């Protein structure tokens, strides 16, 4: 790759905005997702954007894309090893379920209702629940 030589030298101050600013890498990706009861659900493995298509020209004055969902599941593997899972295999945590973003991403719903927690539920119902004592608080 050629070393870039056309980097702009003078930078303007960014326009002021009407809300909190989040940088995806710094504030969203790979953060722990916690449900409304404080139970960890998963991590933010990727982010789905709505309102832009890859490699299609963007018309002047088009509305900016928004985050439609946080993604988890097989998408983690492809982020590490490359490739891309089919859209049908993406596990989505819709953005409208997100209630806050700080050092964790908080949801306003219970994890029980989410497709992101199906593995956890499967392990719980098929294995852990069947071992004596699994349902009780430790003594």
């Amino acid at each position, binding site marked *: 790759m050629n070393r870039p030589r056309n980097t702009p030298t003078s930078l303007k101050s960014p326009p002021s905005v009407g809300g909190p600013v989040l940088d995806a*890498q710094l504030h969203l990706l790979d953060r*722990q997702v916690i449900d409304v009861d404080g139970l960890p659900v998963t991590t933010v493995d990727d982010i789905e954007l709505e309102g832009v298509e890859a490699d299609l020209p963007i018309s002047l004055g088009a509305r900016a894309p928004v985050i439609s969902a946080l993604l988890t599941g097989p998408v983690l593997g492809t982020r*590490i090893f490359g490739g891309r899972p089919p859209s049908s295999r993406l596990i989505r945590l819709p953005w409208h379920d997100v209630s806050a973003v700080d050092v964790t991403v908080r949801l306003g719903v219970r994890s029980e209702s989410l497709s992101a927690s199906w593995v956890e539920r499967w392990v*719980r119902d098929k294995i*852990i629940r069947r071992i004596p004592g*699994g349902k009780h608080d*430790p003594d």
Partner: protein
Amino acid sequence: MKRLLGVALGILTAIGGFVDIGDLVTNAVVGSRFGLSLIWVVGVGVVGICLFANMSGRVAAVSGRATFEVIRERLGPRAGLANLGASFFINLMTVTAEIGGIALALQLVTSIHHLLWIPVGAFAVWLVIWRVRFKIMENVAGLLGLCLVVFGVALFLLQPDWGQLAGQAMAPAVPQTESAAVYWFYAIALFGAAMTPYEVFFFSSGAVEEGWKVKDLVQSRINVLAGFPLGGLLSVAIAGCAAVVLLPAGIEVTSLSQIVLPVAEAGGKLALALALIGILAATFGAALETTLSSGYTLAQFFGWSWGKFRRPVRAARFHLSMIICLVVAIGVLATGADPILITEYSVVFSAVALPLTYLPILIVANDPQYMGKHVNSRAVNLAANVYLVIILVASLAAIPLLIITGAGA
């Protein structure tokens, strides 16, 4: 009064919980071969683990984030996974070594072959993790581990030539019988034994388990700053006993019975019994901590629900992964692999992997986004940078020295 009792209990469990199979074996081996001429490394390691545990405990208390959540978030999935792979592998090796240690200790007590004790030990570890509350688990193992003080008593009873021991410790030199490469190899092993990464996974996750808040930081600092150095003294006593009895007799440490030989010689059956209880408690406690750590690291990387403060059904994958780890450990030991040898390798690899966990914690402990006003002070950062250099050097030198010396043969 209650608060004072809490502090005392915290310090005592930190002392008793400091020593594990890695410290036991490495210190005894080093004492039997180098006298006290490597004991300065224990000092370096203890200061290092105090610094590291303090930082990760503070991150956990202030932000509520345990070590591997931080590693994943800062390093991203790719570097994070490489880190998880290395840390998890070494941790599993340590689980195996600790369970082997439990079995060897039980063999010494009962004369029943240790292979038969391995499934029993592993099952007991699982049962405690499954059913016993975190606080009780930590306190019982830590307090019983205090029996190891008998190594210190034994050292006095042996009436060694204190001047000679002090001379070895104060003016360290490579003994004529050993090469410089072997000396430095064991220096790294001793460093790795004192500063094993699992201690930090466990410490920071434990802070979340016990729900530490900012106001608990003072007590945690006292526990660490008083408990770990005193625990380090236990390590020194183990090395000292080996230096006084095993070194002159030319006995090389290859089994647990040789490690306790000086105690038996000095204090007879009662002392031996105490030493065995101490070793059993120390290895059992460490087996719990390492098994939990393997669950912690996996769960925190992938964002699963975790923690003993939850019922097992509320942290299903966390518990399942620990069961699998214990089964793997049993499988490895069932092949007849020597637990002492596994231990010796595990402490060296611990030193190799140390920068992987140390650096992200150092960075996050300075990040106001996580820490608010509780970021590292300048003094802590200065010390942390000195240790960053030491840890990097030890990590880079470990594998070459392992190869050159044939694992210290």
